[in-house]
């Protein structure tokens, strides 16, 4: 088990390294650097100014050197610019150049500095990840129990009226993307058009103070989309279990139907949905981009969009690292959790 986790962690580091290098290379392509200079300097800056802006700030160094500096294996640049000002990579805002440390990279625990937000990447990612975490937690609290109940109820008696109607509901909810359901919800429940202005069409205030009124719509928009999918998986798994020999035996023994479902069927039926639920975490992390934009909730998805849109190199790298870790850690948890749910599987 220990070895398994160690090996997984090794894979994780390697993936993070490869991915960040790819992101680093793409964000450092010449046109992207030009865009960076123009968004940071002045949108209508001349070409000569772009070149000197990039040179003064160390963007014109060789790619491996810059990557090494970001990793923290090479010393950060100290460049005297054409304007006579000396700039150092490791300089904090307001700190004199001489006091700057030599190395400042991921290895030193320094995630870098965001050019868009003018703040430490580490603190931005932490704040925004926290906000998305809050959203995801609420979504999970609504989605998982909801989906399991619908799936189990539908799968208990295959082909019954309950099954048909619940299946229809879950197929419809899965088939409706968030950008459709979100807009529909806003126009129905957040405007006076239908006389049902019960919720707020924006979740901006939910960042500081989440209430039922301002947080319900984004949560339900994401939850409904994932819910149908998990419910379908649970139903399939449940119907299969319900036809198993031991269920028939239990019924013949005279065990009551609710007891069969709760005691015998449920645990076995949950194995497949468990993996699906764990897979929802990475999906949620990226899937919230649309909903966060729609409801103007500034979480991780929004940071990703801002970083990509403004070619904010170090922030994008930070976001990539977090994404890699979230995906691989949830997979690790799902593998380990599997063992507990299904004793037939052993991790060597």
């Amino acid at each position: 088990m220990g070895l398994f986790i160690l090996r997984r962690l090794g894979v994780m580091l390697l993936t993070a390294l490869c991915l960040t290098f790819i992101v680093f290379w793409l964000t450092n392509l010449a046109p992207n650097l030009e865009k960076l200079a123009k968004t940071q300097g002045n949108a209508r800056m001349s070409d000569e100014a772009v070149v000197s802006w990039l040179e003064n700030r160390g963007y014109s160094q060789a790619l491996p050197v810059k990557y090494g500096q970001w990793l923290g294996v090479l010393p950060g640049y100290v460049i005297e610019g054409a304007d006579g000002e000396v700039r150092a990579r490791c300089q904090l805002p307001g700190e004199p150049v001489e006091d700057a440390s030599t190395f400042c990279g991921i290895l030193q625990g320094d995630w870098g500095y965001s050019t868009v937000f003018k703040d430490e990447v580490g603190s931005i990612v932490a704040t925004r990840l926290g906000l998305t975490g809050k959203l995801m937690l609420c979504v999970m609290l609504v989605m998982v129990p909801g989906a399991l109940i619908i799936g189990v109820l539908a799968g208990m008696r295959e082909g019954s009226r309950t099954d048909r109607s619940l299946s229809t509901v879950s197929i419809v909810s899965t088939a409706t993307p968030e950008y459709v359901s979100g807009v529909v919800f806003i126009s129905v429940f957040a405007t006076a058009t239908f006389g049902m202005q019960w919720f707020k069409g924006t979740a901006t205030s939910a960042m500081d103070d989440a209430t039922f009124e301002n947080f319900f719509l984004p949560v339900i928009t994401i939850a409904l989309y994932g819910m149908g999918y998990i419910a379908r998986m649970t139903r399939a798994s449940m119907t299969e279990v319900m036809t198993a020999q031991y269920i028939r035996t239990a019924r013949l023994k005279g065990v009551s139907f609710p007891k069969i479902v709760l005691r015998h069927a449920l645990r076995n039926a949950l194995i497949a949905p468990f993996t699906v639920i764990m897979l929802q975490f990475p999906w949620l992390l990226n899937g919230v981009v649309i909903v966060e934009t729609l409801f103007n909730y500034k979480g991780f998805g929004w940071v990703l969009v801002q970083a990509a849109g403004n070619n904010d190199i170090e922030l994008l790298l930070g976001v990539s690292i977090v994404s890699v870790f979230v995906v691989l850690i949830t997979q690790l948890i799902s593998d380990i959790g599997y063992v507990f749910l299904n004793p037939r599987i052993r991790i060597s």
Partner: protein
Amino acid sequence: MTHITTKIHPYAKVYAEDAKAGKLDRREFLARTTALGVTATAAYGLIGAAAPAHAAGHAQQGGTIRMQMEVRALKDPRTYDWTQIAFFSHGWLEYLVEYNNDGSFAPMLLSSWEVNDDATVYTLNVRPGVKWNDGSDFTAADVARNIEGWCDKNVEGNSMAGRFAVLIDEATGTAVDGSVEVVDDLTVRLNLPASDITLIAGMADYPAAIVPADFDPENMTGNPVGTGPYLPETLEVGVKAVLVRNEGFEWWGYAENRGAFLDRIEYIDYGTDPSAWVAAAAADEVDMFYETVGDFVDVVEGIGWERSEVASAATIVIRPNQLAEVDGTQPYADKRVRQAIAMAVDNAVCLELGYANRGVVARNQHVGPMHPAWADVPGLPFDPEGALALLTEAGMADFEMEITSIDDDWRKNTTDAVAAQLRDAGFNIKRTIIPGSTFWNDWTKYPFSSTNWNHRPIDTQILGLAYRSGEAWNEAGFANAEFDTLLAEANSLADAGERREVMAKLQGIMTDEGVTIQPYWRTVYRHAKPGIVGWDMHIAYLPQMYKVAFAA
């Protein structure tokens, strides 16, 4: 209010006669006279009118206002490219002069100024008694240092250098020696190598924020030294920015009854989608907008908000670039092609389809009736058949024109309207839409594209920025020696009446050369919920939050 008796510029009196005779409207009169150093109150006095009363009487002291606005990162004010940045920083970094909707220039950190007759010597009188919030005095040395900073071309993205180009020594990229002269503690004199009538207007623009000595653009919120009544509390880019009253600091404006009524100003970012702004308004999460655009004017009025509108010189140009090469040739170098393009487009249609008729039709001259020296020069006639004939004569009838625009609401729609009319006239058109994140990378180089331009107070300003030969922002690739000479001449004529004759020639060249399609002037809107005063939309989007208050 103390009146400072100064010599009234001779032309100001001439203007006053013109204004009284009805030859000059009030806005023009104010813009001309106040730019010459006459105070707005005195200017109103010259034409026998009373200056409009300040809102102070109806304003309530205190309160928190929440304004929807994009929250952008701070940077060196000289390099500001969005007025939204100034909305935050103007809380503590103030301006020398302020430009108002009635066209007048009002003194802020300057108490008054005088311009000599041919606009080569500016005498700036610094307002006495102004203090920095670190306790030191604001003096003429501060003004001189800032002006020298504006003239520093070596700072990348310094757009003030364009506004003060006349003072810059081409060889060193800094201010000409002796041009910025500190006469005494409260007087600065600018000695211009050539005439320029636009400097006061330049000082009122949003990148002209006055910064303290040893100013560090990387640490603006960490060390907010300034002269203004507010201090930054928080700045989360893209999320929220908060200004709070600098308690205990004696702002110069309190004694002058200038306002600064609010205790707290919150700018909240709701992204670029106006429907999100409306959702925020409906949810009572904001009290006013930064700007209301397009169809959303009607939508917000539907929820009971009040409107403020002003006809500005903000506009869009859809221009061919005369230097652009397409497949080895320069298709738009030929004057006939450009004229054909202009003749095939009815500007009224562009206004209707592109901006829902919320503006005034223009004549492709990029100078308009809101400018002091605008001349009434007719544009090219709308003649699609003649246009096609002209295009065929130039041998370009089969040429496929690619028209590029940014992906947004009104700019895209207006460009679409142009493209559709050109197609109707029989031109071969291809439309390309580029997302906002990459559009500006090459905005001056697209062979044929649209660009939005902001309002500028003086008629010659935009011509100098966008159409003078070799200018960085000359996106039309227009180079015309006669135009340049006339423009230099216009820039030396402080008197708008004399300048108008030159402007007529300049506008004539703009029309005849078919430099650009400039279909309309935009009316700009802002909305706020009832019960707030002093929040009017500003003609040039300049920040004046000190005027805003809750109604008493």
